[in-house]
């Protein structure tokens, strides 16, 4: 089999996002932030979101990790920017469900934009967490009480 199977996971669009991430950096101010670690591998994502009128006005991330986690964070931020928080949370749910193999409607998937290519992660069970980290960070950032501390789990 060799490395040809990797083409399914490391699609060009994923490698593009990993080497030229969108929305990487820090926002001058943020209404919601969340730092998440994947304790098994040390991947980190620090997410900053600016929410106004229930809409994600701006979003950015910093962090370190593998190609998949970085590409996923880039795709996630690109996909949710400008969306309402309700829509963004629905997308996060679609993504999490998708990563554990649950089916979703075509229109749900289309909402995800580039990020839907990461469904290929399902063929690499050991790497699913890499892809979901950014989406979990988004969920936690949007859902947490404003005065809750950043979590270090």
């Amino acid at each position: 089999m060799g490395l040809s199977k990797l083409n399914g996971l490391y699609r060009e669009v994923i490698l593009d996002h990993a080497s030229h991430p969108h929305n990487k950096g820090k926002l001058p101010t943020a209404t919601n932030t969340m730092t998440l670690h994947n304790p098994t591998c040390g991947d980190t994502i620090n997410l900053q979101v600016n929410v106004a009128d229930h809409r994600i006005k701006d979003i950015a991330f910093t962090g370190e990790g593998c190609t998949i986690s970085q590409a996923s964070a880039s795709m996630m931020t690109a996909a949710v920017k400008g969306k309402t928080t309700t829509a963004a949370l629905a997308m996060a749910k679609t993504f999490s469900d998708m990563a554990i193999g649950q089916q979703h409607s075509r229109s749900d998937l289309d909402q995800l934009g580039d990020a839907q290519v990461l469904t290929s992660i399902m063929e690499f069970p050991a790497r699913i967490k890499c892809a979901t980290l950014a989406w979990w960070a988004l969920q936690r950032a949007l859902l947490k009480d404003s005065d809750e501390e950043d979590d270090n789990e």
Partner: protein
Amino acid sequence: MAFNINDVLSDFPILSQRVNDERLAYLDNAATAQRPRQVLAALQDFYIHDNANVHRGVHTLAERATEDYEGARVKVQHFINARSSAEVIFTKGCTDALNLVAASYGEANIQAGDEIVISIMEHHSNLIPWQQLARRKHATLKYIGLTAQGQLDMAAARRQITDRTKIVAVTHASNVLGTVNPLKELAVLAHQHKAVIVGDGAQAVGHMPVDVQDLDVDFYAFSGHKMMGPMGIGVLYGKAALLRAMPPYQYGGEMIGDVHRDDSTWADIPFKFEAGTQNVAGAVGLGAAVDYLQGLGMDNIQARERELVTAVLPRLTALPYVTVYGPQDPRQHTGVLAFNLAHLHPHDVATALDMEGVAIRAGHHCAQPLMEKLGVTATARASFAFYNTREDTDQLIRAIKETKEFFNRGTI
């Protein structure tokens, strides 16, 4: 090589399989080794013929099971050259053994202002128990650092270990750097300051001859599953006088002398530290692993692993995009090699290598303070055992080259 590799390989059926349509090169031995048929047979024989609870029955099976269990203890005693089998305590594993020392010896002997000295290359299981003990007791946790060559800095050890030091806990062999630490020298240092020394032997036992009397360590912990024995069994060696003076770690059946309504007395060692029904089959399997390793000869095993590292390390360091952490001299190395490929995360590398049939580990290897010291968040790690072959080394190097090429081009 003093043993026939084909005979050895026929003892490890798990190794002769294909994964992802490729020949399997199992190079994750530092995480867990594979078991030979002889160990599996011992487990099965125990359950088929002798299974009963030990030390509590008068019937024949109980007697046999007790003999099997205590026989395994004696095998381990001779394997590490302990003075007495009472100095061999069966635990769940290395982590459990280290926690036992911290909870029992540490709790009884550490006071506010005391020092506990460990090294920066410790596995979390030889770090957190001491860190938390130090916090509970308002003691100070001190670290011995590394030299530029990735060895334990013995000059720093001489500075860090002082008359306030009560415990020195250092790994015998690093699970990341592949270094072997001079435990014997550290024991002399610790004893000069009236401290006890705890050796973490998880990556040493099964890979090199270990003689606890020669090392003069006070405690020494290791896991069965990293030395071709079963999971869920491990050993704490401790000097009898120290063990006798220590309070129990857990309370329950089998560890008691007399129990009254308001007070109890404890059994003698080793039973004082073996509360409840033990992993008897695990101990029997561990005994079989000891027999197997001794059959091959620990000197031969060490020589073979060194031969493999001598073959693969220069080829790895010769790749311009590969950084190898730890000593670059194969003579200073166990079979553990940590490395990274430039601009590639080790997780991506491990997934790619898996597609080539090469099983390695990627991550922080439960040694985050060491990762921080090395300036990385994670590394890839290939770890060899005596049953690995030159073909495995070739497959590793080929897979690394192909991985590099794949990510250079983005596709293959």
